């Protein structure tokens, strides 16, 4: 083949022909690094298990009870769903700051349609979901077609949606009993099952199922692979023939739709519908779960299962500290430590290729 080789290349024939020989005696640390690189959800899972063990040993059987553990799941359901939506956006190297307020306005719209306007509950839910998707679509169009930075776009829509929410609702809370009598469908996700002392709500099950569906879509469909490719290297994805604008737009729209789904679950959990929930930092909690779950803020890396583990870590830590009677600020402090630790580990794992 190489008959016409250049003069200086003649020595190549005598060069070392052993190709791609891998050093079998890699240090343990290197092997761990490789394992974590190929299994991005492993770190949060390990941290989660460690957290459960540590709190279990200090608190004792009270913490290990299935009642406590399932209570944690109930507490993280909403942040888990929002985190799943946030994961989609962060995988494309974007960020969605508006996700929390999209959830609140969707909840308010669902409640108003069903209770104040007396629409059938199914229609009210559909309108609420559509409203969330529409907010996401607005983000998507601004990011994909106007080519504005996602941080700026969603910072803007965060404020716009929050103000719209207060203006539209006149900050009036819809009472629990009104929802219960007129639109019990909105409380669907509060349904609970008792298995021994474990209490599972439909909301918890919905969270887990949603994450599993998204995991399938991200890993086993072309669209999912495109989401990763766009976040990894948008220019390369475009040259490979991926319609990057379409992918970005569907990601933001889907994130809005999932936020509206979180709204439905949150109505079940809270009972009443309060527009003033818009000031809660849901979006930051979702980003925290995502980051602790090992999703890289630079895009293209991480597993959505990690996000669920990330949300659970926060839930376990706050419940554990609560039961220990610690100052609630310790939870905030520990969350900060976890965020920085997660990003530091992400940077270390990325170096595997270097």
């Amino acid at each position, binding site marked *: 083949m*190489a008959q016409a080789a250049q003069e200086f290349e003649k020595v190549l024939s005598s060069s070392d022909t052993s190709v791609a020989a891998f050093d079998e005696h890699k240090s343990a640390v290197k092997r761990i690094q490789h394992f974590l690189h190929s299994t991005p959800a492993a770190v949060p899972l390990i941290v989660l298990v460690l957290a459960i063990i540590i709190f279990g040993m200090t608190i004792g059987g009270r913490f290990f009870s299935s009642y406590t553990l399932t209570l944690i799941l109930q507490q993280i359901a909403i942040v888990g769903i929002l985190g799943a939506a946030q994961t989609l956006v962060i995988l494309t190297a974007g960020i969605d700051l508006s996700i929390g307020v999209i959830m609140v306005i969707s909840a308010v719209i669902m409640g108003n349609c069903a209770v104040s306007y007396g629409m059938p509950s199914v229609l009210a839910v559909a309108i609420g979901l559509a409203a969330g998707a529409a907010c996401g679509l607005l983000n998507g169009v601004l990011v994909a077609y106007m080519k504005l930075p996602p941080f700026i776009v969603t910072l803007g829509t965060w404020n716009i949606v929050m103000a719209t929410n207060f203006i539209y609702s006149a900050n009036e809370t819809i009472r629990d009993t009104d929802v219960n009598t007129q639109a019990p469908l909105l409380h669907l996700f509060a349904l609970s099952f008792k298995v021994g002392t474990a209490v599972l709500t439909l909301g918890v099950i919905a969270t887990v199922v949603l994450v599993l569906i998204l995991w399938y879509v991200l890993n086993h469909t*072309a669209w999912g692979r495109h989401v990763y490719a766009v976040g990894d*290297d948008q220019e390369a*994805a475009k*040259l490979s*023939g991926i319609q990057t604008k379409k992918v970005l737009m569907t990601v933001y729209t889907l994130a809005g739709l999932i936020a509206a789904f979180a709204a439905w679950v949150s109505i079940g959990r809270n009972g009443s519908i309060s527009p003033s929930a818009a000031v809660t930092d849901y979006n930051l909690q979702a980003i925290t779960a995502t980051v602790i779950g090992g999703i890289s803020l630079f895009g293209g890396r991480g597993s959505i299962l990690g996000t669920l583990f990330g949300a659970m870590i926060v839930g376990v830590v706050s419940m554990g500290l609560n039961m220990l009677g610690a100052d609630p600020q310790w939870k905030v402090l520990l969350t900060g430590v976890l965020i920085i630790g997660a990003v530091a580990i992400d940077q270390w794992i990325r170096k595997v290729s270097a």
Partner: protein
Amino acid sequence: MTQEPILTARGLVKRYGRVTALDNADFDLYPGEILAVIGDNGAGKSSLIKAISGAAVPDEGEIRLEGKPVAFKSPMEAREAGIETVYQNLALSPALSIADNMFLGREIRKPGLLGEWLRMLDRPAMEKRARDKLTELGLMTIQNISQAVETLSGGQRQGVAVARAAAFGSKMVIMDEPTAALGVKESRRVLELILDVKKRGLPIVLISHNMPHVFEVADRIHIHRLGRRLCVIDPKQYTMSDAVAFMTGAKLPPEAALAA
């Protein structure tokens, strides 16, 4: 040449503001040949290649693929017509696997309900075809088809990009500086790969600044200067210094070459 060209371009003009990147440029590619395109920086090589590969739409001029006029508005349209491009930055997604990268944008779905309704990818089929293609091109030093592209060396990545182009290109393959970032040994592998692709009957357009590489593999050399085709020379009849002299304007090309 008595053969009909696969692709011809006549009178291509492309302006970027007040800069004229292509000034009535012509281009011909014949079946089964390796055509090298050389030229100084700013001569308009990239603009010419972009016009052919669909990455840029020329302001004027006509491109014909197998005699039929074509007007690509995006790289996707050129790809659908059978023109594959290996870009200088390779256009690979580092975090995705080799198989996923080869099929990026044209994935295979599972047959039946799984593919139709759940849109499930047919990983085994994609991995098999990727492995076959890599083996065919002598690239099986890669052990694991599902390993991430970022764990490969520069030459192996180039190999994956070339294999992707060869697997899907039905009419022609364009390669932009395929050896620019590679070492001596890896450059050799890529040149062998280019000759391998040619053996399979696919014509190749090779853009390169590396004169030894160009003179080794090219059948004809298209010299681009000041936004247009200056001449086409036979590498067996001219030396590298002649080519450099034509390309920089130090020497005027012979009449015979101008007519080509």
